[in-house]
């Protein structure tokens, strides 16, 4: 048995109903705003070579031959030069670097006539070959 009068019951049910329409309007507006303003950015990573000035070639009295990868252009084509060997791809350079001792580290010397992508390829090849100490040397040209 329900003792509450019919009119009162109706009023209570009207009071308890939450009005959702404005909230949904605002939420949809926010959603549209984010859809329109957001932009997709590809994931980024980084390489952290040390920096050093060009002094390594004058190490005639040193006990070891410094391991230098030169990033250069030969006949307009980008190449990597390592100990009298010339490589045209990153994979070839990585294979050659894998065979070298890792303790002395490796120097990457970037020629100004080349582009940044090639220098980064050489740095990546050195890292992938297992070198912990990778130093970038800006060439004076």
């Amino acid at each position, binding site marked *: 048995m329900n003792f509450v009068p019919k009119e009162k019951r109706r009023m209570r*049910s009207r009071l308890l109903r939450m009005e959702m329409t404005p909230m949904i309007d605002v939420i949809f507006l926010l959603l549209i705003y984010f859809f329109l303003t957001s932009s997709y950015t590809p994931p*980024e990573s980084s390489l952290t070579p040390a920096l050093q000035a060009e002094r390594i070639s004058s190490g005639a009295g040193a006990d070891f031959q410094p391991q230098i990868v030169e990033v250069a252009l030969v006949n307009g084509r980008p190449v990597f030069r390592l100990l009298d060997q010339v490589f045209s791809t990153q994979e070839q350079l990585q294979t050659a670097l894998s065979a070298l001792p890792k303790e002395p580290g490796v120097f990457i010397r970037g020629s*100004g006539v080349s582009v940044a*992508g*090639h220098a980064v390829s050489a740095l990546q090849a050195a890292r992938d070959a297992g070198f912990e100490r990778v130093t970038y040397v*800006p060439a004076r040209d």
Partner: protein
Amino acid sequence: MIFRSDETRSRTPGPDITALVDVVFLLIIFFLTTSTLAERTRAKIELPGQRGEDAQVTGRPALVINVTQDGEYIVADEQVSEERLFVMARRSIRQAGGPHAVDLLIRADENAPLWSVNRLATGLMELEVTSWRLATRVPQPGEVPGSGVGR
């Protein structure tokens, strides 16, 4: 004339929008967390497609220097001269507590002339900076690393 009583009308079940509101809220939270409003330091340049290093540095770098395909320097969406750039670098070094503590991120376009990166490196060395970070773009599955260079 109303044939249906008020009571019947109030009892008629409306569409259950709870699930919809849940999904919409989730979408809003997703966009809020992934939106790039805070990434204004990133200029639109094509980074070299390389995997980078396994150990990633977390936290925001003290200074992000973008090098465009034309060899120009852009910092915080603004093209800057070499002199101004090194003034900014000096300030960042001072704020970081020294040239060995500063975290500098260089975002060089894969086809940026290397002389512009070399000039930057030489200038940073003169400021006694010994390490920097070169940004790379994680390659898409199946993409050959460095394949975008020279394109």
